[in-house]
């Protein structure tokens, strides 16, 4: 019971990061592909305006995930971080590069400086989610054995599932970002940007859907146990829900219902994460380590749950306030002229 609750917490943190942190990474992807300095400027300005007040808070979900894993499932945490040291370190470095470049981007003195910083920010925004996705793919594919660096440090995360999940992480992030930024542009009254992001949302939605289906096919040929999980019971429900939410998102984007599309897109992505978790039940590190075997003693799990309940009681209202202020445009990007 307690291990399942704490596993649920880890899943919540992961989902929060995939949706909110993922959208931040995705914004970097659109920054990368926005075109030349002049043509891409409005898109980049909108990205900066939307991200500035919320990126630190969005990032905390990752820290929370790490903490829940090492407190609640320490053996799994040590096994994952030692075997998957390369992709995880790459992701961590990507986060640093991205944070530094993002912070300084608006302040570049010359075009060359701005380009170098922009490129760093954008490239790191693609590398980090890909590396995280590859790590998740390695776990799902059963390539992370229990032990200190017991798995192969390269082949563990370079299999077909890792590649597909890595690409999927980049694509879903880009899709979420485009949907969110489209809605933000509408609120800001920037019609030309609304259309730019709508086109991006539609395109990336199709790509993300195709990658999700490709992932299913890879799982079917290589990982029969996981495939069974995804095609029966709760796993199947998640897969179907994700597909339906994805289609609804595309329809809402088509009809320019951008605010509703935010929630539909988030649901589509969150249910992919949930589907994976449900499908590999009862394993945390398939094929051997179950959630219950990996779990810390009950005293620790209970304390963690109590701390989380208290913490959430503080965080949820605060986070709601932050998002409400940010979405209503009351947290101004400081360099912008005030109305």
């Amino acid at each position, binding site marked *: 019971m307690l291990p399942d609750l704490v596993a649920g917490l880890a899943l919540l943190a992961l989902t929060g990061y995939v949706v909110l942190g993922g959208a931040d990474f995705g914004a970097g992807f659109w920054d990368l592909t926005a075109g030349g300095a002049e043509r891409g400027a409005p898109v980049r300005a909108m990205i900066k305006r939307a991200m500035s007040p919320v990126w630190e808070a969005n990032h905390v979900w990752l820290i929370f995930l790490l903490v829940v894993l090492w407190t609640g499932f320490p053996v799994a945490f*040590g096994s994952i971080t030692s075997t998957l040291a390369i992709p995880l370190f790459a992701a961590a470095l990507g986060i640093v590069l991205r944070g530094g470049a993002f912070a300084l981007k608006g302040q570049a003195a010359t075009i060359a400086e701005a380009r170098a910083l922009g490129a760093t920010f954008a490239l790191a925004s693609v590398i980090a989610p890909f590396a995280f996705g590859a790590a998740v793919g390695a776990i799902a594919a059963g390539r992370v054995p229990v032990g200190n660096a017991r798995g192969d440090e390269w082949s563990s995360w370079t299999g077909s599932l890792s590649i597909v999940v890595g690409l999927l992480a980049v694509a879903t992030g880009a899709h979420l970002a485009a949907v969110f930024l489209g809605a933000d542009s509408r609120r800001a009254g920037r019609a030309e940007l609304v259309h730019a992001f709508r086109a991006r949302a539609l395109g990336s939605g199709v790509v993300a859907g195709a990658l999700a289906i490709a992932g299913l096919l890879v799982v079917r040929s290589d990982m029969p146990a996981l495939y069974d999980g995804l095609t029966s019971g709760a796993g199947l429900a998640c897969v179907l829900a994700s597909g339906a939410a994805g289609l609804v998102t595309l329809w809402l984007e088509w009809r320019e219902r951008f605010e509703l599309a935010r929630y539909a897109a988030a649901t589509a992505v969150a249910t992919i994460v949930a589907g994976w978790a449900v499908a590999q039940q009862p394993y945390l590190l398939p094929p051997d380590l179950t959630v219950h075997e990996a779990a810390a003693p009950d005293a620790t799990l209970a304390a*963690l749950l109590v*701390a989380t309940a208290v913490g959430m009681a503080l965080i949820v209202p605060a986070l709601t306030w932050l998002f409400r202020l940010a979405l209503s445009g009351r947290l101004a990007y400081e360099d912008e002229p005030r109305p």
Partner: protein
Amino acid sequence: MIDGVLGGPVDQDYLVQARQMQAMSFAVHIPLVCFGIAFPAMVLFLEGLWLRTGDPLYRALAKRWSKAMLILFAVGVVTGTILSFEMGLLWPEFMATFGAVFGLAFGIEGFSFFVEAIFIAIYVYGWDRLPARVHVAAGVPIVLAGISGSLMVISVNGWMNHPVGFSIRGGEVVDVKPLEALFNANLWHELVHMYLAGFIVAGFLVAGVYAYGWLRGRRDRHHRVGLVVALSVAALAAPAQLLVGDWAARTVAERQPVKLAAFEGLERTTKGAPFSLPGGIEIPDLLSVLAFHDPGATVTGLDSVPADDRPPTGIVKVSFRTMVFIGTALTVLGAWFLWVWWRHARLPSSPWFHRALVAAGPLALVALIAGWITTEVGRQPWIVYQVMRTESAVTGASGVPVGFAALGLVYAGLVAVAFVMLRRLGREPLEVGS
């Protein structure tokens, strides 16, 4: 002693590099923690002055400091993330074996960090948009979360030096009591020591910036207010730190006698142990007085444990002295200011005072790092004091030197970026509205 649940010690040719990589990551992050602790309180103090007096200068200065606070927080977010990853990337056996014992502290720290991230965004981006009282109120959680966050991280460090809240049976960790581990006996003195260090480092560094401006001829009211507020904080914290340092040293003497022996490089257990100053001067009985407040007390020497179980004494001894001497010098400098302020209600007018202030910030940083080297290297060869050796905890993955080099390069860039941003912020003219 315990080897760990992942299968015990592995071959790792680069244990030293792994330790240095961890040390570098802490050395970059800890100065930012100081600002996380002290800056919100300093900014709120200025905003409070504005609310009380209506003087727009206070508001303008608070707003400027809050922008610097946000830059430093953002850098702290990413360097803190690296630290979280390194816990597992470098020390997987430590995390796997003891995560269940001390991990709860990081859980609570995570929430503190969340609160900080949310309210710092509301506070800094809400200056012109939120009603004044709401805005001040949004700053309070940042201060509180700074305290609770450092409390929790310090708790883990205290625990590594004084591991409690579990038993070992048959090489396994059992009877885990996470709350006992969380509130270990080292927590309180380490917390107060670090908390005051935060105010000393942030206070002297900020004051140093304005002192530099004073030396360059910028002596308007804006620079004076900035200097006085920052320096007051540091000058009041410094003498208190001497007392807390004494408390900390006596706790170490009692609980980690070998570490204390390393502070002084005391080879043999000695009754009435002396303390040596640079230049070979020895003050009789002083170490006994410092450690136990008793000139005749017996101080345990390094020879009380086998050579394998002793920390590297050279670096610990030098670090300890560096911290103590700088701390004392900063206290004297702070006292100079407090005296002149009390007698004449003005700043000391000597350029030497301002030159000393410019040097004080970087020196405070050196003392901070030296203090952490003292306690962390002094704990070696143990990662969990007298329970797990550092070499048992290290990762079996290859490529530690590659990671170390890559992170070193990235951090050099990050520090440069932060420096450039702060300098640009400093060059903007202060906008004092009405």
